[in-house]
């Protein structure tokens, strides 16, 4: 029983990363109809930035958790203005291609400057211990990551539900045709929302720095899993992205612990689930069918 709880907890922690990334991807998609291929690269920049703040400026983890998402958000807004916006009126595939090119450039810039060797980053000293849950104990840092991600997701949910901007974003995300039909102008929120989505990827990156290898390619394969996650949850659905993120984290952790003679199961489960969802509910578990783009 305690082992099961441990694995479940563990799955939720990796799910937290998927959920944060999927959430950012979904928010951006909702507002701009752009699938940001560079999302994994921004996650990587978040982790690398955290590492650089410590080594170059001596700025510790807690400040990085504030500074890095803000800086990446600003960078994201600049990217939206200079690169993404000029293509806004064209087929969204152009922006998908653009962000793919951006991924290559960002990865190589980091590689060129800092190499590909994974950089060390310690666990923040306040969180090096373990938390005793009675039946099992768990590293304190992971407990923190999970709580932080849950709080972040709930906060975003609240923002979207209780502020005017949020309602606009949610309306544009989940009912794009209706929003436009009602003549609601979402234009001036496009840039900040893009920046916000990037900042969420940055948060995930900062959280990853103490527990995962920090290197230029850390987001490259992850972004594909996140794509599958949002397809499962429904690309337009904020709730679906978060739920699918945690769900896939759980499935992978359980797969790894109980089907450990077949590691292939844990690796491909997300794609098999995606195929099943496509057959059964092409718009995703929580998505809503819309007119073909």
């Amino acid at each position, binding site marked *: 029983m305690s082992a099961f709880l441990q694995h479940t907890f563990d799955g939720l922690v990796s799910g937290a990363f998927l959920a944060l990334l999927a959430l950012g991807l979904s928010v951006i*998609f909702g507002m701009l*109809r752009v*699938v940001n291929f560079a999302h994994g690269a921004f996650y990587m920049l978040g982790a690398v930035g955290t590492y650089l703040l410590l080594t170059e400026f001596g700025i510790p983890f807690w400040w990085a958790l504030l500074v890095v998402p803000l800086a990446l958000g600003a960078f994201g807004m600049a990217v939206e203005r200079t*690169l993404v916006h*000029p*293509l806004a009126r*064209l*087929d*969204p*595939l*152009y922006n*998908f*291609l*653009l962000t*793919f*090119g*951006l*991924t*290559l*450039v960002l*990865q*190589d*810039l980091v*590689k*060129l400057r800092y190499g590909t060797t994974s950089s060390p980053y310690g666990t923040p000293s306040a969180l090096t211990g373990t938390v005793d849950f009675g039946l099992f104990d768990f590293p304190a840092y992971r407990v923190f990551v999970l709580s932080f991600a849950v709080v972040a997701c709930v906060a975003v949910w609240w923002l979207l539900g209780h502020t005017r901007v949020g309602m606009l974003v949610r309306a544009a995300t989940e009912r794009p045709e209706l929003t436009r039909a009602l003549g609601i102008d979402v234009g001036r929120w496009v840039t900040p929302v893009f920046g916000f989505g990037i900042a969420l990827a940055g948060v995930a990156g900062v959280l990853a720095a103490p527990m995962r290898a920090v290197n230029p390619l850390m987001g490259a*394969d992850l972004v*594909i899993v996140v*794509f*599958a996650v*949002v*397809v499962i949850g429904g*690309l337009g659905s904020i709730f679906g992205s978060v739920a699918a993120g945690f769900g896939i984290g759980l499935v992978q952790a359980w797969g790894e612990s109980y089907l450990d003679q077949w*590691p*292939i199961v844990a*690796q*491909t489960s*997300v*794609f*098999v689930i*995606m*195929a099943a969802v*496509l*057959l059964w509910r*092409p718009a995703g578990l929580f998505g809503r069918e819309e007119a*073909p*783009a």
Partner: protein
Amino acid sequence: MSVATQEKAKRPPSLLRAVAGAPRGLRWALLAAALAVTLWLPNGLYPAVAVDILCWALFAVAVDLLLGYTGLLSFGHAAFWGTSAYATGLVAIHAGVPFPVAVLAGALVAAALAAPIGYLAVRRTGIYFAMVTLAFAQMIYYIANNRRGLTGGENGLQSVPRELFGLDLTDAYYFYYAALPVVLLGLWAAWRIVHSPFGRVLVGIRDNPARARALGYPVHRYKLLAFVLSAFIAGLGGGLFAMAHRFVTLDTLHWTTSGKAVVMVVLGGIGTLWGGVLGAALLVRLEDWLSFSGFEAVGLVTGGLFIVVVLVFRRGLWGTAADLLRRRLNR
């Protein structure tokens, strides 16, 4: 609205069309020039690089067949390129058949794999289609990595024999000419598909799926067939690639390989078919040059170039060339 239609108003779909109004002599001159360059290529370039260009040209044309003429961006075509490479390699190793037969077998396996993947993927369009194909390709990658007995894992499938009626094809220079017919066959097939009634229906679906459906065309089935045909042509390229290098590795299935083909298509010009050939030549040559130049960031150059093309140069090399030519002729 699809990527290919975006620019339609401004440019003719292909150089051939641009030349259509040109004097007969010019048409033949251009064709002869293209042929001459193709035949001369391994004398000017390092032959192995020239062979790589042939393989990638097929791959890029296959991707453009989907992107440019069906409006579907596949970001997972490495699944077919790589699967065919493995199948070709295995057939060559175990059956010892002439290499074109092995390549054909590999391409058929790729097409067979494309059927179920395409069946699921064509249910979505646009960006969803790109993400779904990407995810499926990643799944194939993981499976190949795990089936070590078959694929050799990350050591790859080594020492694939290159057999053609006892001819000595060890030298890449001779292999180039041996492979050329297969490549021309693949390119010709792509050209035939695009200019067939089937191809015109595809373009119709691309431009207005609702109308095509209303006219009674089974849209999903048309897209699926296009997907399978494209996978077959990509498979020809992948099989030849296995033969060219006489080994197959997991890289052939990685998503970065899919990305590379898409980059070639965009560089050459989406929806121009032959632009993919040009894009392939350019990118292969560029990568070859960069790896000897001591400059370490290949992705920085290709990614940067790609961004510029997407932002300001969306017609690509071929589209721009066609446009210039047309303007000159119309003057």
